[in-house]
């Protein structure tokens, strides 16, 4: 078991390195100098040179990569060109917001998905099953940024129950778990929860109905086990897969939050990413992508490690 964890950890290292490389290279894919964002086009040559060396842009690419990586490992992700603040600080505060949003959305989505999926699996072919199937297709097919707009229209503009944008007047720095603040979270979280809900419903439904048809369930019932006990057996069999899928969904939501955060102006990493792209703020862009991907890699690792704890069959060599 220990060797398994060690193997997964060691394996994650080259992946993480590759991710840093891709994050770094992505920004340099852009046609046009990164300098265009910093200096106006008609700046005198010596100013440009000075700026270049200040940002380390005059060194060869591999050196730039190495330096950036070295600093990143120590927690220094550079300075944002647009705001002048440390990238690490901006990303960190944004991560907290996105984590809150993604976490809440995942929780809701997974719970509802499990309940719906289990109900549908137990009552295959009935009305509940059909509703669950429809809901899961909807969940997977709906453009969530559009859903956010629609929910805003209904609950904010038409009914006026919830605020349309933002995270509260004090910003996320002063977050409290009271309705004053929570009301800002409702719509974005509800919007984002639809994605995991659709996928989890479908997964759970398929697994549960497959399990119920298996012979061991017939055997359990023949031995006189009550429905509650049978359900526990099924839950244990279904749990590892669901956990893996749910874990990945959290990562996906964290990384893919940009669209919903743009709709609701939620000050998370996605919103930050948006800003960085449009202001061509290279350090901010690199730093944000890096942190988000590291999160995803770490999450995958955790899921990989936890899986065999729950299901011993799943130790992948």
């Amino acid at each position, binding site marked *: 078991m220990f060797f398994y964890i*060690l193997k997964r950890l060691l394996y994650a290292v080259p992946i993480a390195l590759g991710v840093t490389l891709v994050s770094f290279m992505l920004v340099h894919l852009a046609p046009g100098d990164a300098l265009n964002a910093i200096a106006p086009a008609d700046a005198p040559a010596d100013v440009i040179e000075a700026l270049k060396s200040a940002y380390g842009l005059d060194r060869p690419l591999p050196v730039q990569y190495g330096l950036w990586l070295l600093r990143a490992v120590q927690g220094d992700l550079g300075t944002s060109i647009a705001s002048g603040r440390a990238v690490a600080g901006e990303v960190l505060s944004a991560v907290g917001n996105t984590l809150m949003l993604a976490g809440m959305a995942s929780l809701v989505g997974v719970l509802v998905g499990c309940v719906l999926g289990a109900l549908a699996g137990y009552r295959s072919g009935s009305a509940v099953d059909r509703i669950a199937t429809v809901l899961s297709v909807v969940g997977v097919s709906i453009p969530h940024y559009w859903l956010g707009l629609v929910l805003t229209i209904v609950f904010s503009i038409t009914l006026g129950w919830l605020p349309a944008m933002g995270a509260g007047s004090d910003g996320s720095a002063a977050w409290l778990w009271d309705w004053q603040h929570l009301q800002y979270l409702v719509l974005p979280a509800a919007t984002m929860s639809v994605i995991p809900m659709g996928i989890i419903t479908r997964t759970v439904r398929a697994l549960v109905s497959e399990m119920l048809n298996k012979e061991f369930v017939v055997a359990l019932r023949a031995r006189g086990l009550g429905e509650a006990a049978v359900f526990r057996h099924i839950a244990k069999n279904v749990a590892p897969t669901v956990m893996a899928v749910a874990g990945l969904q959290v990562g996906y939501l964290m990384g893919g939050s940009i669209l919903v955060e743009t709709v609701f102006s939620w000050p998370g990493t996605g919103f930050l990413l948006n800003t960085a792209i449009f202001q061509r703020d290279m350090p901010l862009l690199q730093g944000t992508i890096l942190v988000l991907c590291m999160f995803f890699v770490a999450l995958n690792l955790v899921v990989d490690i936890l899986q065999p704890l729950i299901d011993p069959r799943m130790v992948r*060599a």
Partner: protein
Amino acid sequence: MNTSPLIHQDRGGPKQALLEVRDLKKYFPVRGSFGAAGKFVHAVDGVSFAVAKGQTLGIVGESGCGKSTTARLVAKLMAPDSGSMVFDGDGVDEFRGIALKDFRRNLQMVFQDSFASLNPRLTVAQTIAFGPQVHGMSAKDAERLARDLLMRVGMEPDQFGARYPHELSGGQRQRVNIARALAFDPRLLILDEAVAALDKSVQAQVLNLLQELKAERQLTYLFISHDLHVVHYLSDQVMVMYLGQIVEIGPVERIYGHAMHPYTQALLSAVPSMDPAHRTMSSPISGDPPNPIDPPAGCRFHDRCPKAQAICQSQAPRLMVVATDPAHQVACHLNDPHAGHGNAPSVEYAATALNEVSA
């Protein structure tokens, strides 16, 4: 491609064994966890035998004894770790020997799983026609050949030719597999548990078909099975394997009538007899087979053998000729007067020179 049906290029003459296998070895590395690399499963560990033309060699043994691996090595679906093969006097894959593609025309195989052996996307006739077309036959001729073969294996081509594998029964599929193998006009046919998955009545039909085909086309068979009755019915020679090695080989009536190796004896007595006067009461073999990974020194069967002695634990027996019948060989210290086993025959009795069959 030589399209006329029965021209066999008999290069070596009737005395030349069609297939000679010398000291085949195949070890599979075990995917250990972090520190346990370097261990190997000794799937095939020094196997040598010869098959005469027109004969059927039956290979028997428990699951995991290496018979299927041997078959795949002979079929050249896998490369051996060491050892060589001679086909009708020509080395295979050597400088001046037969090229692999020509070799494929001489030796074909019928697999156990009749369903997995057939491409679900092709009709039965297309499957049979594929092989000859690879070797240059035109599509028209290949189709005609496919129809002829289907007829020969007892399936009406107009009715079955355009069917897909999932539309046939197990026995029908296996006939198709046989037809496909015959399409190459091979000289040696390897049948790897080919009838194992069929119902008994269907088995009988397929076995009879195989016998007829063998006589008609002067085929040689390598018949691998764990079913001793079937092997008895079909084979001229029988080879018994245990944990990757040959323990006994000889003419079928000798093996079934006077088996010399304790393992063979145990196998035979484990077969339920139809005769109520000879009921089996006790289990002849006890214990579990040892780990095929890094097997111990000495005879591999010694910990389950009722006749084992100290010598059996320390020294591995070699395959040696039995004094009373030169065609019968066994790898057991009981047969070797010089080995030091208490119950071995005396030196005078074993007057025949020791004939080792290894590289």
